[in-house]
């Protein structure tokens, strides 16, 4: 139905399509009827004329025969009485008949007594001959014979002439019919079609319903009325569709599609090219939690509340849209400067943050806002959502619940992230990812009991990059599994080397991202890799976070059980920062719990932290779990941990992460443990340290 032409050039199409449509119908009608009419007319005429022709031929034959007989009667006496001049003159009389070419009278001896030739017999000539009988009272004799040669030329000529006339009349009649049909078809068919087509074309141009102006009561009139009714219905439906396409059905706010259109008109609507446009990209924090906690209906209600608040908080010239999920956009078309814009954004945050009652519970909504401010004349105005998104990303990742203003630094970060993400495949291919190891130490004996494998990216241009920066990019680009295998392989190789260095008692811990817990093939691969390097799976320790357990409890549990059956130990990482669910500690097959360094850093000064760690330690003891304290940087911390019953420790106080060779050398020196075995790694420290 609709093609590019229709859309791009409706005018030309209207001019061309409507007449051609009507012409084709009319022409088809004419082609279907007029030749038939003409042929029938000509055939009928020819048939009538042929029959008339034969009738004329017969009539001519009969007439000439009669002529011969009557002349024979007239001639009999002068012939018998040898008045040959009279015979000739009687014969001459019949020559007035123009069909007669020649005539002759023969006497009873067969000699031509009289002969007249009217014209050379160049055409088809027929001849009739009759005896001439003479009788009087006394005798009855055959006095001779009359012969008349006559031509059908006049009949042919007459017939030809009439045929020509019939042809001309037939053609004229056909032509007249053609004209009449053409005119009537145009009036009764072409014109209504054109009217309807014209209405369709106009409707196509601006989407409004134009009625076809047809007054007649015939079928086309009925068609036009039906068409007009349909136009009316369709345009209403289109209006609703258009509104639906451009608006969010839940809140009634314009949607993402509207945003694209609105952005196009933004620069035009602005007073001057230098006026500033504030674009606020709002993302509700933890909306998923609301949905999970209160159900989706409540979530929807929540979103409606937010939209109403945003609507109340803005001025009439401002523009509010919901992009989907928990994302909203507010655009203020004119702000005096960036500070004003920021104040406006904060004002929005404040409006959002008013408590809402959901299921008789007070909920305090939280949101992050990415703010981008651009001049109206900026040619990259259409990139505003993307720019604001950069700021929002920053706010969400760095300071949820705040306003992040897009600045050069953020854009630089964004570009760096983007460049890194693009470089990930090359990083894998060229082996730019390195696995460093950090030791875990028995707090009592100070012996190294394990190493944690920590990933680093040695980028050829950007240098060494910490996992905190690139791991989210790895995850986002879907390379988690690949990286996990990479680390696993390296860890197994390290175990092999440790074993050959006589340190087979040292185990290596690797971090499993949440997505890996859902991968049922992980256990099999782990076993295969261990087998390849001839190391025991029991030498491996797998660190998981609470967050990865929550998202898929059943699947995670199964994977953990499998891994554990292989002999690997399972450690819960970063305990205390997230849910810190005691139920998790009980439900999952855990061997170790690693206390987040946040609780360690203030120890021994913070009594609260000490209390928390103490409770965790006593709980772990009860559950039979081994505790590991992360981030031990000072000897007091190590002492405090030891006092609280924490068995293992990890941190710069003991060992900074290093490549395996350095670790092996360091272990070599550790062969005779000394009191102060703290060796500073020669590699640069990366802070803050993320447990990778």
């Amino acid at each position: 139905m609709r093609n590019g032409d229709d859309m791009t050039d409706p005018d030309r199409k209207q001019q061309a399509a409507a007449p051609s449509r009507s012409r084709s119908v009319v022409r088809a009608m004419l082609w279907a009827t007029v030749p038939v009419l003409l042929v029938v007319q000509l055939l009928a005429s020819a048939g009538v004329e042929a029959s008339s022709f034969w009738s004329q031929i017969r009539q001519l034959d009969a007439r000439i025969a009669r002529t011969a007989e009557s002349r024979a009667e007239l001639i009999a006496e002068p012939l018998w009485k040898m008045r040959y001049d009279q015979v000739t003159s009687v014969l001459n009389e019949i020559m007035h008949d123009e069909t007669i070419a020649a005539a002759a009278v023969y006497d009873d001896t067969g000699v031509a007594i009289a002969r007249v030739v009217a014209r050379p017999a160049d055409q088809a000539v027929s001849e009739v001959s009759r005896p001439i009988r003479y009788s009087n009272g006394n005798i009855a004799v055959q006095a001779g014979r009359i012969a008349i040669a006559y031509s059908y030329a006049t009949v042919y000529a007459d017939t030809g002439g009439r045929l020509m006339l019939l042809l001309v009349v037939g053609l004229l009649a056909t032509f007249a019919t053609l004209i009449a049909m053409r005119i009537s078809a145009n009036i009764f068919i072409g014109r209504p079609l054109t009217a309807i087509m014209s209405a369709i074309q106009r409707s196509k141009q601006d989407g409004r319903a134009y009625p076809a102006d047809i007054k007649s009561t015939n079928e086309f009139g009925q068609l036009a009325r039906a068409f007009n009714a349909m136009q009316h219905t369709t345009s209403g439906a289109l209006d609703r569709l258009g509104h639906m396409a451009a608006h969010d059905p839940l809140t009634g706010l314009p949607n993402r599609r509207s945003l694209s259109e609105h952005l196009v008109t933004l620069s035009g609507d602005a007073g001057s090219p230098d006026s500033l446009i504030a674009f606020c990209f709002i993302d509700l924090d933890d909306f998923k939690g609301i949905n999970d906690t209160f159900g989706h209906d409540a979530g929807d209600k929540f979103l409606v509340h937010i939209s109403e608040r945003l609507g109340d908080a803005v001025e009439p010239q401002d523009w509010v849209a919901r992009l989907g999920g928990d994302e909203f956009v507010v655009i203020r078309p004119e702000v005096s400067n960036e500070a004003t814009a920021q104040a406006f954004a904060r004002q929005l945050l404040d409006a959002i943050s008013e408590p809402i009652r959901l299921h008789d519970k007070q909920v305090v909504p939280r949101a992050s806002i990415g703010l981008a401010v651009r001049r109206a004349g900026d040619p990259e105005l259409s990139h505003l959502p993307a720019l604001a998104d950069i700021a929002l990303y920053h706010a969400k990742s760095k300071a949820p619940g705040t306003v992040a203003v897009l600045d050069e630094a953020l854009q630089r970060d964004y570009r760096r992230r983007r460049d890194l993400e693009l470089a990930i495949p090359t990083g894998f291919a060229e082996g730019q990812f390195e696995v460093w190891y950090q030791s875990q130490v028995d707090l009592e004996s100070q012996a190294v009991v394990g190493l944690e494998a920590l990933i680093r990216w040695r980028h050829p241009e950007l240098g060494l990059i910490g996992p905190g920066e690139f791991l989210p990019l790895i995850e986002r680009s879907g390379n988690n599994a690949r990286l996990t295998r990479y680390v696993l392989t390296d860890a197994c190789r390290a175990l092999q080397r440790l074993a050959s260095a006589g340190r087979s008692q040292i185990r290596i811990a690797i971090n499993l991202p949440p997505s890996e817990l859902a991968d049922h093939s992980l256990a099999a691969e782990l076993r295969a890799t261990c087998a390849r390097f001839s190391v025991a799976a029991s030498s491996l320790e797998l660190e998981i976070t609470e967050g990865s357990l929550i998202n898929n409890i059943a699947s995670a549990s199964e994977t953990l059980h499998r891994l554990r059956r292989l002999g690997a130990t399972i450690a819960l990482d970063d305990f205390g920062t997230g849910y810190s669910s005691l139920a998790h500690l009980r439900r999952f097959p855990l061997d170790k719990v690693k206390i987040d360094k946040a609780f360690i850093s203030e120890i021994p000064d913070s009594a609260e932290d000490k209390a928390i760690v103490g409770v965790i330690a006593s709980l772990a003891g009860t559950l039979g779990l081994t505790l590991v304290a992360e981030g031990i940087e000072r000897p007091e911390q190590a002492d405090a941990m030891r006092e609280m019953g924490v068995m293992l420790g990890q941190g710069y106080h003991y060992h900074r992460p290093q490549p395996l060779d350095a670790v092996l050398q360091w272990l070599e020196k550790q062969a005779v443990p000394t009191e102060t075995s703290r060796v500073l790694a020669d590699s640069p420290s990366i802070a803050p340290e993320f447990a990778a």
Partner: protein
Amino acid sequence: MTVVLRIMLAVGMACGFLMPVGGAVAADAGRLNIVFVNPGKTGEVYWDMVAQTMQAAGRKLDAHVEVLTSERNYRTMQELGFGVVARADKPDFLILSNEESAAVPILEAAEAAGVKTLLLSNPLIGDDAARLGPPRQKLKTWLGDITTDLQTAGARMANALISAARAEKWQSPDGKIHILGIGGDEITPASIARNAGLKLAVEAAPDVVVDRMLFANWTQSEAEQVTRNYLSWAARKEIRPAGIWAGNDPMALGALRAVVAAGLTPGRNIQLVGLNWSEDALREIKAGRLLMTDGGHFLLGGWSIVLLRDYADGCDFAAASPRVEAKTSAITRDNLAAVGDLIKTRAFDRIDFARFRARAGRCGQYDFSIDALISSLTLPEGAAD
């Protein structure tokens, strides 16, 4: 006796007319007034000669003959007739010819006026004849007719041809004598009678056939043309033409020219006959190219005066029949010399008409034969010398 004769002569002279010498008449009615309404044209040979013989007879028989010419217009003829009938001084006799039946009203007018009439040459025919019946019955003043017997003439002519052909053995390969007949027309009684004569003669001769009876409108040229056609046809039919019978002399002369043109020699290998006693015919007879010409019927004029003279004088021709039929006669090389001049010079005063009057006691019996004629002729004036 001489004295008596002288006295008679003197009386006769005193009376102003000469009594016929041989005539025995019962009573002399004196000079007669006779009017003849001539149907013909001035210069028309036959009717001129009729009138001339009428007048010649009148001079011989003490009758004044007034000739009125209607110039071949029957209206004129009727007007003339009515005029005569209406005269105060009515004539004794009115002679009419019923050409185109135009004489009937005059007859009736004359009856009313009491003028005696005689029909010459053309009698009543058809309805008129049936209606009026014979003379002197319905119309008392209609005394009778005098006509010629043309059928006999036709037969005589045919017989002359047949005799000549038989004598010369001019039979065709089929053994028959082939004759061509040329009639004047097919409707006038004068023609019909002649043709009937031919037919009669031929029917009586089984060895003779008339190949064709052709009609030439009495004219020489047409006769020549049809004769030419006939001869040509006969040649193709391998017929030997033995004779040509022509209803009058001009047609015989026309046929003669065609015969000559066809390479035949008339009189030697073909014979022709005509009718009318015309001068040209007589010349051809003299030359031996024409076998005979029948005729003499112009003498009816003279004979009519003879009848009326006798009637007036008390010898009514109706004693025999009111219808007098005068025979025609043939002129051949044999009698040509006797009558040739008479006709050529029209010296009809040489005829002694008184000699033809009926004898006493034999009223109505006349001899109008050519022999009687010849014997009645006085010598021409030059011949006596």
